[in-house]
């Protein structure tokens, strides 16, 4: 008899065939005497194994008492709950989230910049940095007055550079804060779901 048919007969006997496979096997058994006999043999063997009386063992209560007496103390720091690997789907989800976040930031920046250029925001867009003056620049201009004529372009350049860096830093701080918040949320989620089914552990 073909090996595959043998496997299928065993699976049929054990109730492991379903759907189309089950119907095909039933149809085959209806017409094949050899397979029917083989199935009967397998069934008889299974019944023989099941009927074989088990040897006497000690009663559960006595076993539990003996076990409890000899049960060792668990070593602190011994086998503990393993932190499961990061769920596979979390990586692409994280990447997708990051991509969405970056795209949103770029889109918003573009909108605000356009609105600022077109003057739609008026003075409301001062925080973007355009036309901003540092305190030190205002103080220097007031102090020097008309004498600042020569040094004004250089001071103005320095002012623009410092305003640019200040805005960049505050913008970065915002984004870093949101990123940290997002990562913290991911970590909390991961820790709370990290207790996976553990058929694992060094139990061999």
């Amino acid at each position: 008899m073909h090996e595959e048919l043998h496997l299928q007969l065993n699976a049929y006997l054990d109730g492991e065939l379903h759907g189309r496979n089950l119907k095909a096997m039933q149809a085959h058994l209806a017409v094949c005497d050899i397979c029917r006999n083989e199935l009967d043999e397998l069934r008889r063997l299974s019944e023989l194994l099941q009927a074989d009386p088990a040897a006497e063992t000690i009663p559960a209560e006595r076993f539990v008492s003996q076990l409890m007496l000899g049960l060792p103390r668990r070593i602190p720091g011994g086998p503990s709950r393993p932190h499961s690997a990061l769920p596979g789907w979390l990586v692409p989800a994280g990447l997708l989230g990051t991509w969405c976040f970056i795209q949103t930031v770029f889109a918003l920046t573009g909108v605000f910049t356009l609105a600022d250029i077109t003057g739609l925001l008026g003075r409301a867009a001062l925080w973007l940095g355009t036309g901003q003056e540092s305190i030190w620049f205002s103080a220097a201009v007031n102090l020097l007055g008309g004498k600042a004529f020569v040094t004004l372009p250089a001071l103005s350049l320095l002012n623009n550079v410092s305003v640019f860096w200040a805005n960049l830093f505050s913008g970065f701080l915002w984004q870093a804060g949101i990123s940290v918040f997002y990562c913290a949320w991911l970590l909390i989620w991961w820790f709370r779901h990290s207790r996976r089914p553990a058929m694992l552990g060094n139990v061999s």
Partner: protein
Amino acid sequence: MVLTQTADTEIDLIEQAQNGDRNAYGELVRRHYQGVVRVVLRMCADPGLAEDAAQEAFTRAWLNLPSFEPRACLRNWLYRIAINAALDVLRRKPEESLTDEQGQMISENAPDPETILIEKEQAMDIQLALQSLPEAARSTLVLREYGGLSYQEIAGVLEVPVGTVMSRLNYARTRLREILMVSHARMENEYA
């Protein structure tokens, strides 16, 4: 701690045992003792060895319980530990043939001495046939026939694909039939 045994679900008991509650663990052992003993007994074919294997299995399970996920199937996890413990106990024990004492798997309601003898020999033949199987095939067959596990569960316990479970079962049953057929013929000659 006093256990309200009927009210405690298995998950509660597992969590209590994970936190070091020995009474809760005792209750879990009580619940799974029969199943584990049935499996190790068929693996070892010796009540003494089976008891050692069961003790070892439940001790290992206690030590590794903190790493067990309470929502997973405790029975399957215990069977896996029990199979490993039984194989370890067998490896430590020197090769011996089954003694008369070990072959005491007879029905108490046997009507006459001859039937007792036949049943006893049959039980010993089955045990010998099981013992002659390779460990992998025997573990698979024992988990199926005596543990009542599905193919999928056996695959999980033994960490093999379902296809391997199927071929191991097929091999084990074919081999058992061959061995038992020979011993049956021998018995027929003896009692003819």
